[in-house]
């Protein structure tokens, strides 16, 4: 039995096509359709219900130390009001989850976890916590709305005091009133556009959502969320990241600090050295849509496999991400992808596929 987010009624009222996702009922699209929703984010401002994500608090004198030892990024000296993207690894270097850590206090951190991995993440963290630090699952007390697009700042400023809104990417501000409701507002997102993620009490979510829609934001579903993140080459756990994929092969070295004294998975990453397979972007040059789990070939040789793929509306082409053998990963390499028995020509291109213009 799927759970409903605090915004379920909003989605139904807007004509959302509800589907089960990570244990919740969420809209895959509204009558607008995936492509129009995608372009609304690229050109104006789109709105997403992301309340299904998991949230946790880690508090205590040893909180920072635990984050440094359990996660791949460095959290020493992380400023208050800043957020950091990080991986959480298994001993063998594979990924437990990718997550964002917000520093809300000297000894207090707010963690945002993938919906599908929330339980697994909490158990892993709890298992590895040492010393004076306490972990609290607050997922049920936090609703989340994402506002993304070139007009997001202008739009949000009509509902909140502009001087209080975070400006720098990955900065956040707590206790900002948006449409009268107290929110934590962060300059983060999963679309490749400038925008915000609002964390707020579930009871306040419907009114804030309605206010943002009234102010001109276009409601967007899971379909557009996926096409947007793919254009922006953002990894999705279960596709570009998994228990059998390490973050260096994934091209996420910026979130892995190998110079830290110790963290789970460090030894395995050092042993891997140069990855044998790396994540690349493919742009289809032939006819067809490349999707996940399709073989990438050069002639008769299989050089890799795709992990995600779809038609990318703002790029105007079908694009995919894949892991291919390092020696064949140069930009410009011509490949073919086996799509339901048919060879579709593609080319390795730089990531991201789409870069925002303003």
């Amino acid at each position: 039995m799927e759970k409903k987010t605090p915004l379920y009624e909003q989605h139904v009222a807007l004509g959302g096509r509800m589907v089960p996702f990570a244990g919740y009922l969420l809209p895959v699209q509204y009558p607008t359709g995936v492509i129009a929703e995608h372009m609304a984010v690229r050109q104006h401002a789109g709105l997403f219900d992301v309340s299904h994500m998991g949230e946790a608090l880690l508090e205590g004198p040893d909180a920072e130390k635990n984050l440094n030892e359990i996660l791949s990024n460095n959290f020493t000296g992380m400023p208050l009001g800043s957020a950091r993207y990080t991986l959480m690894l298994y001993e063998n270097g594979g990924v437990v989850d990718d997550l964002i850590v917000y520093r809300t206090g000297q000894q207090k951190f707010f963690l945002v976890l993938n919906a599908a991995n929330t339980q697994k993440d909490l158990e892993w963290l709890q298992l590895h916590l040492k010393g004076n630090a306490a972990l609290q699952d607050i997922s049920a007390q936090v609703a989340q709305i994402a506002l993304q697009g070139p007009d997001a700042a202008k739009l949000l400023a009509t509902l909140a005091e502009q001087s209080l809104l975070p400006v720098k990417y990955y900065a956040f501000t707590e206790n900002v009133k948006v449409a009268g409701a107290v929110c934590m507002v962060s300059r983060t997102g999963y679309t490749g556009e400038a925008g915000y993620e609002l964390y707020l009490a579930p009871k306040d979510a419907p009114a804030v959502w309605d206010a943002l829609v009234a102010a001109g934001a276009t409601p967007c579903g899971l379909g557009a969320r996926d096409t947007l993140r793919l254009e922006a080459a953002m990894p999705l756990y279960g596709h570009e990241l998994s228990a059998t994929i390490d973050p260096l092969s994934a091209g996420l070295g910026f979130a892995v600090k190998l110079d830290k004294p110790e963290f789970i998975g460090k030894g395995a990453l050092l042993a891997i050295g140069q990855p044998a397979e790396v994540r690349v972007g493919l742009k289809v040059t032939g006819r067809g849509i490349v999707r996940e789990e399709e073989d990438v070939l050069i002639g008769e040789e299989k050089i890799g496999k795709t992990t995600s793929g779809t038609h990318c509306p703002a790029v105007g082409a079908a694009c995919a991400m894949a892991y291919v053998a390092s020696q064949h990963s140069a930009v410009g390499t011509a490949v073919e992808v086996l799509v339901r028995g048919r060879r579709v020509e593609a080319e390795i291109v730089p990531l991201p596929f789409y870069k925002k213009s303003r």
Partner: protein
Amino acid sequence: MNFPKHLMYSKTHEWVEKINETTARVGLTQYAQDELGDLVFVNLPAVGDAVTEGHSFGDVESVKAVSDIFSPVTGKVAAVNEELLDAPQKINEDPYGAWMVEVKDITAFGELLDDICYAAYCEAAQDA
């Protein structure tokens, strides 16, 4: 939902327009395009290909998924609507104008419903 009276419909949501006893045009119904969502790619057969009633003769791709198109007739492909190859969204915009193939030398028609029966069939499918 719009289901023009002069067309016949298959249970796999294709429409058939009989041009004469052995020639027909085939497309996807409004119900089909609504279920599929924004179409981004169409794979159609070639002129001269044989099609068999009840068997897939091509597929359409929406942003999220691929779906087979099933031939409601047995015959030979006489014409293909090339326009759809570059503009698959025309199927969403005008499902009954966006014919996909014209089939000639028809030797068999599959089980086809009139607009009333098809409308009822779609309603039942929605409630399921």
